[in-house]
């Protein structure tokens, strides 16, 4: 029955402190959220902006790399073609028609040229009628009629000519360079050279592209001029759009037939016939982008984690400090209130004691006189009866005097002071206060005090209050005919210990955790919940320590440690 009452009480109390705890929890959450927002929000914004900028600059870098590469390669091609065209043009001007007609001479020239320039496959002389009249090379092309070919017609327009890649009579991909030598007679002759496109592939190979990328030449109609890794055989149409004729290389982001996202780079060669095309799949770009993005995200996440950790610790610490400060303030306030109350009680007690003392003194003297007179008159009737009456009046006066002295002593001790004290004496005094109640309830109070205990320098009033509070609690905890044991001993050369144990109802672990908190009470209707918190405060103030052990239905034991010399504490 009693236990049930206690548990409901405790649950009510814990609910109370729970609400309080909730308040601090909420405060903590509010602070944490605030801190989180002001730290994480800018970080996130920065992350997004950075990502955007990084992506942009990474793309720009990729594009500019591609443009540079295209530009360089384009120059290589132009140089290659220009050198060879110059060589052919030089021959056409250095030698006359008669000389070139001679197979030996042409042979000599061809070897020289082959030694100095790579790619030359053959060399032929075409007469004004378009017939190849002299030819040095691996094919049997002497006497072939070129009058209807593009090269023949093209060269007559501009004086020299570089063909697109074609198979021609030889069924072998090559280009043709032709230089026309005009004579006043109108008998124009043409020097014609074939160049294989292996060198084109070498130039493309020298670009050092990654295996996913592709580079090739196309003509203005979109036919592949060199073989492509991904976009078809030579001379087949490339499945990509043909760009406008601009001299500057440019990069376009698009998708190819296979659906791959690509950077498509175009560069028109100077002769307007060839277009250098570089295809770089975006995948490789994305790969480095994702790597970068991953790193950024990792840094971001680590930051968030660290910030969260710091916020968690910091808010915990802060709220704990606030809570501690609140509690301390509350206790200090209550203590003040309590001591105010006590000091006004003390003043009143002192007043009453003093006022009562004067009539007591009169009673004392009058009775004393009565006694004196009785003693002086031996023959008086009922003398012995009167004497014993006077004696009992004097005894009562003595008792009343004891009470007033105690009251005055109580008032005096409210003033904080340090003095040399015998702890055993203090304990005896305090027991005197509660002895009556204990006797009424048949509670035995056993004192087991160490003799010749060192005197300590402390505040008697405060110490009395500490012992009295704990003893009152013990008295409340025991059943009638219970037992309270008080012990004192020397704990160490600096410390005296006092233990107050009862065989009362005991406390649960939960209750023990809270007993020193202000307003925690199990005596709902009677207690303020301040006794033990004030006790705790006093013991701490005196530089001591208080410990409690308890077990439900077995009892509780409070041990108070008090330093022999009070350390200076305001």
């Amino acid at each position: 029955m009693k236990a049930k009452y206690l548990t409901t009480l405790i649950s009510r109390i814990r609910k109370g402190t729970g609400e309080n705890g909730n308040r601090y929890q909420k405060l903590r959450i509010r602070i944490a959220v605030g801190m989180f927002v002001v730290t994480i929000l800018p970080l996130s914004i920065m992350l997004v902006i950075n990502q955007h900028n990084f992506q942009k600059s990474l793309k720009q870098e990729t594009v500019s790399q591609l443009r540079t590469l295209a530009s360089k390669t384009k120059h290589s091609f132009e140089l290659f073609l220009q050198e060879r065209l110059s060589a052919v043009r030089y021959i056409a001007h250095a030698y006359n028609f008669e000389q070139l007609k001679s197979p030996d001479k042409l042979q000599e020239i061809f070897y020289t040229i082959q030694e100095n320039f790579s790619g030359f496959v053959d060399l032929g002389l075409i007469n004004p009628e378009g017939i190849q009249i002299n030819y040095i090379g691996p094919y049997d092309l002497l006497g072939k009629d070129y009058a209807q070919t593009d090269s023949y017609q093209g060269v007559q327009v501009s004086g020299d000519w570089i063909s697109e890649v074609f198979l021609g009579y030889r069924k072998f991909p090559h280009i043709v360079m032709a230089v026309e030598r005009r004579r006043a007679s109108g008998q124009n002759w043409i020097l014609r050279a074939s160049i294989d496109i292996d060198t084109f592939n070498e130039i493309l190979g020298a670009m050092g592209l990654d295996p996913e990328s592709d580079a090739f030449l196309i003509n203005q109609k979109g036919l592949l001029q060199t073989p492509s890794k991904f976009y078809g055989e030579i001379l087949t149409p490339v499945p990509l759009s043909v760009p406008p004729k601009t001299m500057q290389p440019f990069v376009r982001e698009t998708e190819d037939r296979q659906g791959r996202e690509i950077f498509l780079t175009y560069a028109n060669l100077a002769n307007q016939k060839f277009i250098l095309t570089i295809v770089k799949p975006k995948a490789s770009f994305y790969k480095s982008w994702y790597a970068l993005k991953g790193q950024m995200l990792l840094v971001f996440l680590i930051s968030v984690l660290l910030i969260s950790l710091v916020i968690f610790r910091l808010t915990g610490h802060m709220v704990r400090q606030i809570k501690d400060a609140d509690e301390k303030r509350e206790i200090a306030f209550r203590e003040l209130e309590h001591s105010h109350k006590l000091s006004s009680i003390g003043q009143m007690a002192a007043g009453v004691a003093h006022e009562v003392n004067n009539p007591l003194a009169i009673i004392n003297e009058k009775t004393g006189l009565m006694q004196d007179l009785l003693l002086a008159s031996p023959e008086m009737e009922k003398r012995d009866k009167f004497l014993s009456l006077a004696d009992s009046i004097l005894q009562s006066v003595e008792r009343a005097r004891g009470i007033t002295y105690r009251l005055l002593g109580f008032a005096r001790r409210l003033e904080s002071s340090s003095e040399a004290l015998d702890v055993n004496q203090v304990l005896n005094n305090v027991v005197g206060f509660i002895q009556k109640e204990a006797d009424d309830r048949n509670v035995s109070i056993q004192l087991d005090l160490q003799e010749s205990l060192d005197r300590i320098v402390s505040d008697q009033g405060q110490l009395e209050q500490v012992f009295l509070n704990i003893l009152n609690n013990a008295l409340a905890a025991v059943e009638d005919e219970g037992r309270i044991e008080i012990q004192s001993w020397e704990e160490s050369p600096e410390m005296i210990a006092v233990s107050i144990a009862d065989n009362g109802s005991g406390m649960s672990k939960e209750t023990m955790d809270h007993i020193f908190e202000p307003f925690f009470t199990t005596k709902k209707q009677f207690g303020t919940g301040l006794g033990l918190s004030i006790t705790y405060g006093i013991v701490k103030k005196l530089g001591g320590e208080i410990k409690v052990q308890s077990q439900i239905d077995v009892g509780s034991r409070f041990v108070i440690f008090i330093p022999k010399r009070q350390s200076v504490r305001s």
Partner: protein
Amino acid sequence: MKVLKILLVDDEQEFVTALAERLELRGYEVRAVNSGEEALQVLEADVPQAVVLDLKMPGLSGLEVLKRIKEQFQSLPVLLLTGYGSTKDGMKGMQFGAYDYLMKPLNIDDLITKVHEAVNASQ
């Protein structure tokens, strides 16, 4: 034995008369007065061997009377009576030259012992 002459000063009429009578019964010559002013007047005419002085009195306070007595009769022993549980006033009185102090209600035997001590000490 020489009869000791004691001056009793206390505003409580009933107290002093009873105490005076008791002391007289014990063979002392006692003069009881109810105020400081009266005590000083009496002292001008007749100096006793000891003064028993209550500290708390209307008009001239016990402490004030003590001071004046000590100004005029430095060697005259004074015992203080105090109603206070606090020893503070008694201690203060001793600083001003009182021999000792006793708390009311008092034990007459204690008083007599103290008076003799004080008189012996002053001689």
